[in-house]
């Protein structure tokens, strides 16, 4: 008998009643249901298998795409790593190298084929001469510091100077999963640049001397001790440097400064400082001085050294030096004060002749204060027009008549009263204030002259500063236009010091002035050393013989001889000669005898205000002006 399937047996049991009757229908249902279950199960399996295959196929494709993407990412990462300027290494939690770039190998001077994933990191480092001296096997002195950082679990940075001079910046970053990543960057050039910048911040670029900032620092350090150290601060100014710079050019000027700097540096000890403050100004800080004589001797050596000729690109140049000196603690113990006193002393050295040294004296400060006060008042005077013009006539000898008046400047200060020109003109020239003052004088004089007779001319003194620092031609033109004065009635007096600088430019200006129609006179003739040569440079209209010759004409034969020569020359050249400072009739007689054309002096009139000039003109009687000798009064000569 066939062994029936267990299920069929069960189905038979179910389809058989307790009485043994077989329900075929029920059996059929049960069997059919079994087949249907099997069919459904098979279809389910087929479907699941097919879907699973599709999903797996899709997964494979996605995985392949991911692999491709990963590959691309890997190549990108590799490219990024290899093109970094820094060396990079990543070490895993077990201390083995996971990733590094070629730069890392290069920087640590290890073969790149030793830097493979899995290499023991510290083993690798032991083969690097950066950390282990290959000759002795000893650790480099900075190795311990690096190893400490590498073993730490904190983010940190380190900068080291390696055995071969490289300066390397190392950053260490622990990773969350263990291990770390480090970057190495060669910052040697950056550090050098930083050092250069730091150096440039404290040094003069032309001479490489310390600059004002560094000098101040050294000064602070020197004076910081208790008690403050004995030291001296010398301010040095190169005399006539500007002339060299202007005439030979800035390239020569720079070379001159460099050579002067070398000479100054050669005079000091190692502990002392030479600094360039700017322009042609230098400073020396002398530490641990012994006394006044030591400093004076050095100052003297400095001046002589700087004054020696310089060979500059085929030019031989000679300059001088003025030195101002302040010492600590005698003069001051505070850096700012010491600097100020050295500067004051230098000013004094320059204003008292240059080419010399001066020690600071307390009076200089007061003198500087006075100067500053005068400066303020002078500036105010310009704004408030506190100036006045006085006039002194120059007399034509044959026939006797007033040819014109020389305009002489006075300053009526509300606080100081009437101030003579020699008390403020030098300061005005130094500050450049002579330019606006001079323009005011020109306008006033031209305006005043318009009120006089048509044959009367007015003479105005021009300062060299006006020639070199302003448009003097324009100022003259404006004064003539505003006043309406005919140009031939205006005479401009210049001294020969005008011709010392920028001679070509000056001559051009003189010709331009001439072209306007004004006349040009040379004042104080005979006092300089090139008076005659200047006469050949420009056709002056008039020469004013300096009072020094007039004063001695009746006592010194030399004076008479000079006057004779000058008047004779003027006659030959067609130049009007005027003698200044005539105070006695004897002087006048001699000058007349020597064919002098014009005279000017107290004998005829002191300088008078404008209102008195009208009276003078109205009452002019030539015969009354030849009287007895009168004692000479000091002439106050104004410029412009």
């Amino acid at each position, binding site marked *: 008998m066939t062994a029936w399937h267990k*299920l069929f047996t069960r189905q038979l049991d179910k389809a058989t009643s307790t009485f043994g009757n077989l329900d075929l229908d029920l059996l059929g249902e049960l069997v059919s*249901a079994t087949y249907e279950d099997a069919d459904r199960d098979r279809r389910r399996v087929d479907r699941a298998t097919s879907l699973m295959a599709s999903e797996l196929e899709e997964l494979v494709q996605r995985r392949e795409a991911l692999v491709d993407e990963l590959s691309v990412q890997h190549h990108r990462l590799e490219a990024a790593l290899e093109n970094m300027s820094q060396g990079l290494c990543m070490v895993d939690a077990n201390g083995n190298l996971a990733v590094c770039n070629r730069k890392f190998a290069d920087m640590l001077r290890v073969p790149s084929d030793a830097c493979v994933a899995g290499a023991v990191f510290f083993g690798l480092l032991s083969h690097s001469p950066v950390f282990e001296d290959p000759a002795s096997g000893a650790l480099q002195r900075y190795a311990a510091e690096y190893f400490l950082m590498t073993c730490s679990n904190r983010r940190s940075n380190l900068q080291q100077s390696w055995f071969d001079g490289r300066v390397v910046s190392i950053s260490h970053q622990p990773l969350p999963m263990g291990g770390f990543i480090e970057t190495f960057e060669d910052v040697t050039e950056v550090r050098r640049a930083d050092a250069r910048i730091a150096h440039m911040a404290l040094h003069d670029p032309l001479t490489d001397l310390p600059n004002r900032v560094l000098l101040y620092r050294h000064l602070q350090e020197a004076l910081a001790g208790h008690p403050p150290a004995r030291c001296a601060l010398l301010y040095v100014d190169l005399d006539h440097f500007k002339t060299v710079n202007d005439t030979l050019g800035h390239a020569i000027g720079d070379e001159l400064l460099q050579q002067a700097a070398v000479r100054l540096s050669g005079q000091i000890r190692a502990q002392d400082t030479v600094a360039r403050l700017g322009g042609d100004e230098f400073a020396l800080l002398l530490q641990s001085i012994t006394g006044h004589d030591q400093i004076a001797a050095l100052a003297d050596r400095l001046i002589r050294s700087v004054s020696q000729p310089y060979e500059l690109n085929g030019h031989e140049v000679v300059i001088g030096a003025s030195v101002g000196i302040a010492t600590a603690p005698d003069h001051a113990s505070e850096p700012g004060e010491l600097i100020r006193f050295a500067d004051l002393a230098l000013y004094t050295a320059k204003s008292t002749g240059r080419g010399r040294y001066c020690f600071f004296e307390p009076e200089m400060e007061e003198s500087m204060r006075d100067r500053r006060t005068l400066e303020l008042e002078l500036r105010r005077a310009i704004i408030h027009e506190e100036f006045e013009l006085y006039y002194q006539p120059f007399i034509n000898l044959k026939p006797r008549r007033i040819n014109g008046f020389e305009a002489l400047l006075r300053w009526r200060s509300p606080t100081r009263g009437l101030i003579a020109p020699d008390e403020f003109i030098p300061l005005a020239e130094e500050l450049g204030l002579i330019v606006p003052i001079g323009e005011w004088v020109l306008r006033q004089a031209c305006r005043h002259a318009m009120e006089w007779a048509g044959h009367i001319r007015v003479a105005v003194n021009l300062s060299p500063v006006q020639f070199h620092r302003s448009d003097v031609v324009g100022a003259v033109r404006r004064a003539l236009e505003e006043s309406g004065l005919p140009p031939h009635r205006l005479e401009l007096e210049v001294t020969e010091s005008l011709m010392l600088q920028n001679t070509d430019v000056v001559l051009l200006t003189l010709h331009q002035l001439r072209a306007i129609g004004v006349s040009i006179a040379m004042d104080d003739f005979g006092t300089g050393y090139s008076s005659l040569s200047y006469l050949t440079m420009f056709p002056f209209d008039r020469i004013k013989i300096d009072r020094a010759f007039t004063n001695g004409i009746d006592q010194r034969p030399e004076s008479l001889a000079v006057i004779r020569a000058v008047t004779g020359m003027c006659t030959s050249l067609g130049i009007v000669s005027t003698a200044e400072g005539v105070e006695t009739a004897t002087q006048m007689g001699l000058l007349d005898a020597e064919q002098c054309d014009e005279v000017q002096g107290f004998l005829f009139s002191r300088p008078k205000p404008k209102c008195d000039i009208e009276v003078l003109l109205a009452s002019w009687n030539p015969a009354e002006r030849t009287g007895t000798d009168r004692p000479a009064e000091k002439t106050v000569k104004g410029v412009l």
Partner: protein
Amino acid sequence: MKTYELCWNSAYGWHHSVPASEPVALVLYFGATETLKEASLYARLRSDFPDAQILGCSTGAHIRGLAVEDEGAIGVAISFASTRVRVAATPIDAADQSFACGINIGTQLLADDLAAVFVLSDGLTTDGAGLAAGLSCVLPAGVPVSGALAADGARFGTTLVGANEPPGTGRIAAFGLYGTSVHCSYGSAGGWDRFGPLRRVTASHGNVLLELDGEPALDLYERYLGEEASGLPATGLHYPLSIHNTDDPDAQLVRTVLGVDRQTRSMTFAGSIAEGSTVQLMRGCHERLVDGAALAAHRALDERVGGRHEDRLALLVSCVGRRLLMGQRCEDEIEAVSAVLGTRTLQIGFYSYGEITPGSGPENCELQNQTMTITCISETAA
């Protein structure tokens, strides 16, 4: 301990051979939902066993001996020599109450000599994993918990649970066994095979699965079920989900479908499925399911400590998914279990919507699906 089988049919009611003098302490009954709705079913039990703790639930089919029956009901009456029995119950309205209910039940049953717990829960409202977690939260370590989620065949309509009252919806009940004489041993195994790719749960909320790999979960099941998709949620039992445990890749945590929502394209499972977890579809093969049942029986047997065979009761809880797959052949697994446990062990049980089994880890219990879970109870002589 003595056990007596009870059989119910509509015509004759309960049929049993329990002597009137037997001090029955515990009665368990399982049957079809419609059968349990009959008022006389519980009434007769209460009448026959006035002093017993009576617990029961609706099933997907019940197991009596070697047979699986869809109609009627079966039960077992148990008397103990010295073991005490206590019952606990709590209502449940929504799945998110499951954890609190577990705590409640566990708290009610707590005692120093609590030896084991068996829980029966509403099969459609409860989050079995939450219930298991709540019980584990309260019960001392070393107190095993087993049980099941009541079922309603493949209808997924109404499940009933009763504890000392007629069975009703929205209930969780449990009995505790107390004393040192009682011994429980357990075995649980599935036999389902994982297949296809691993999938990531990209959206879920508790035991409601919304998305797998960014695709609505229901879309995936409909695709795999094809023409059978119209039978969801029942046909969904063919493809339970295995939840991947990254710490123990070989461990199996299985979840089975209880319901679907075609509006939200979501599926409700018997236990929670955490968002971000990795899952894999499973499918069953008859032979391996039968082997799984045998394995469960071996496991229950191996853990057995002491006792005499004739006093052993084996409560078999299998899963409706296995019933559905194996169809008329599901008795093969019952026979496989019986072959291991022996014919002198009283086997009784049912097909559930989820099995609660003692945990493999530190927890007292965990929810499983698609398994044959066996609880063997015996009592040593005093």
